[in-house]
């Protein structure tokens, strides 16, 4: 306790002296840059000690409890004053009685150090000194700390909280739907367009082309697309219109095969199913696009449906399809590709409409629950934003900061 006071008093005294010196120097004529070195008096004055030091257990994504994080305040001589700090020394010790050894030299202006490869659970004593190249300031110390192995990532608590709210909403609506409550969902305009397109292909006696995007099976858009594919396959099975499904991923192809076969069976047309029409073309983006373009020009489908994850190939497909005279309906949640589909296709399911369409079409009450949950989560999100805005405006920034996680 005594030592801290002494340090503090010294620091104050030093600061005052340095400030006076600095002011005096400022007033003195500017020293020429090439003044010989000998004229500079030998530095015998230690810089002021840095301000309050805190040490705490550091929590990272793979936390073995072997890291401790240190923060201190700049020495009054760092930057301001006489600018007499070259670096800070971080000292570490296993006992309170000795300062231990220097574990790091941190350059001036910095107030942070992460000490690693420590023994989990062991107590460490830290101190920090300011160093001007020759002289060491008095140390600033802090309470002993130990690294701990953590079981929860506290910095991600807001993610978990919102996830619980959201999943709660989804599950509640799913339960309601299962119980038979009538959940209203407005009809999605693009769905009529799909049916019309397939109808026209039937009238013209030409095939329907369904591209489920170039995403892998783990891409959520691909999953949504497979549900829509099942619906489309049922229509084509009924009308006995050929359905061509080119894919860019082998696993998506086998899933598509199953989905289409199943749909044909359900409608009572298992013999109309032609396995040759579900094709794997290529994993490479433009090789795939080139091959689909080839199908459009050579097999002349009258309706092209693009549903799923698309990248730059979107416009290549949509423009070739237009040139081939097909009616085209697209659906994707890839924001960067929406403008191209919106301009080049007859109808486009935009963003979330793709997921909504798949839930709507499946007509399974359980899937509608997710849609309802998402809707109410939007309301929650807006409310949180509004609350955040008001609190920010009133000066309480903690609330919004709580959401800025890593």
């Amino acid at each position: 306790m005594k030592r801290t006071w002494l340090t503090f008093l010294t620091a104050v005294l030093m600061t005052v002296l340095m400030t006076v010196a600095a002011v005096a120097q400022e007033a003195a004529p500017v020293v020429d840059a090439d003044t010989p070195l000998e004229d500079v008096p030998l530095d015998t004055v230690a810089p002021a000690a840095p301000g309050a030091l805190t040490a705490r257990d550091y929590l990272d994504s793979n936390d073995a409890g072997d890291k401790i994080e240190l923060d201190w305040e700049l020495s009054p001589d760092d930057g301001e004053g006489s600018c007499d700090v070259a670096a800070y020394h971080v000292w570490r010790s296993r006992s309170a009685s000795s300062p231990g050894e220097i574990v790091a030299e941190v350059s001036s202006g910095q107030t942070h150090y992460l000490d690693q490869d420590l023994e989990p659970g062991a107590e460490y004593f830290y101190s920090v000194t300011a160093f001007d190249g020759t002289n060491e300031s008095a140390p600033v110390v802090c309470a002993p700390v130990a690294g701990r192995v953590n079981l929860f990532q506290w910095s991600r608590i807001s993610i978990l909280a919102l996830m619980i709210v959201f999943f709660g909403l989804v599950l509640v609506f799913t339960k309601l739907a299962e119980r038979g409550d009538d959940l209203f969902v407005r009809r999605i305009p693009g769905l009529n367009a799909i049916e019309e397109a397939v109808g026209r292909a039937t009238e013209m006696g030409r095939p329907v082309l369904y591209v489920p995007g170039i995403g892998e099976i783990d891409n959520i858009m691909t999953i949504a697309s497979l549900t829509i594919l099942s619906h489309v396959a049922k229509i084509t099975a009924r009308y006995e219109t050929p359905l061509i499904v080119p894919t860019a991923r082998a696993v998506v192809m086998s899933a598509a095969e199953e989905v289409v076969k199943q749909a044909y069976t359900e409608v009572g047309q298992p013999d109309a199913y032609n396995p040759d029409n579900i094709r794997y073309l290529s994993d490479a983006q433009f090789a795939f696009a080139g091959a689909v373009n080839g199908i459009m020009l050579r097999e002349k489908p009258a309706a092209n449906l693009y549903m799923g994850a698309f990248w730059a190939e979107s416009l290549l497909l949509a423009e070739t399809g237009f040139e081939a005279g097909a009616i085209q309906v697209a659906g994707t949640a890839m924001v960067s590709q929406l403008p191209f589909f919106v301009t080049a296709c007859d109808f486009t399911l935009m963003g979330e409409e793709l997921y909504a369409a798949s839930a709507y079409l499946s007509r399974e009450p359980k899937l509608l629950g997710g849609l309802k949950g998402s809707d109410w989560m939007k309301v929650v999100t807006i409310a949180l934003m509004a609350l955040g805005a008001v609190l920010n405006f009133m000066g309480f920034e903690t609330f919004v900061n709580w959401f800025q996680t890593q």
Partner: protein
Amino acid sequence: MRRQIPLALCFIAGLFMAVQYFIPHPTVQDTYEIVLGWLQTLLAFAFLLGTVSLIRMHFHKIRNRADDRAFSWVTLLGLVSMIGLGFLHPQHQLPGSPFNLMFLNVQVPIEATMFSLLAFYIASAAFRAFRARTLEATLLLVAACIVMLGRVPIGDLIHESIPAATQWILNVPNLAAKRGVMIGVGLGMMATSLKIILGIERAWMGGSD
């Protein structure tokens, strides 16, 4: 067996991968890294599956004497030569190796050129599809024109405020719309993921047996 086991595996894998995000404990994190390696390896195996499908398809075409079977030979030869060059040449990835030369001088030009076809298609789409039929369509085409002008020197020449207008469109209306779409899409993705993990959404399994 046919449905229960895959659904259970899906649930376990999904739950673990979701929960590990919140648990920094080394045991969990090390397991996570091992499982992530499995998933990546599975992706590679799935890719090989595609190659097998590709070979089967083209063999089929050649055997059935399809009209364009000559091109099936082209595909198969390309495939075999790349595999041969890759596995027979020990340092296939080094610059100047035949494998790398084939990649840079055959695959890259074809793909880059197919990519650049987009410039032509953008022009034809502009002519035939950008119609000021409704207020919305008009806004789309006006915004597109301003941004296109604001990003090239000729925009500065026409009027000095065009680059500023471009920046405003990007930073205000564009930003607002993008954020809205992002939130909606994000919620849709999460809801679907949850349904997949819980076994409610089963489209990935295909048929019903």
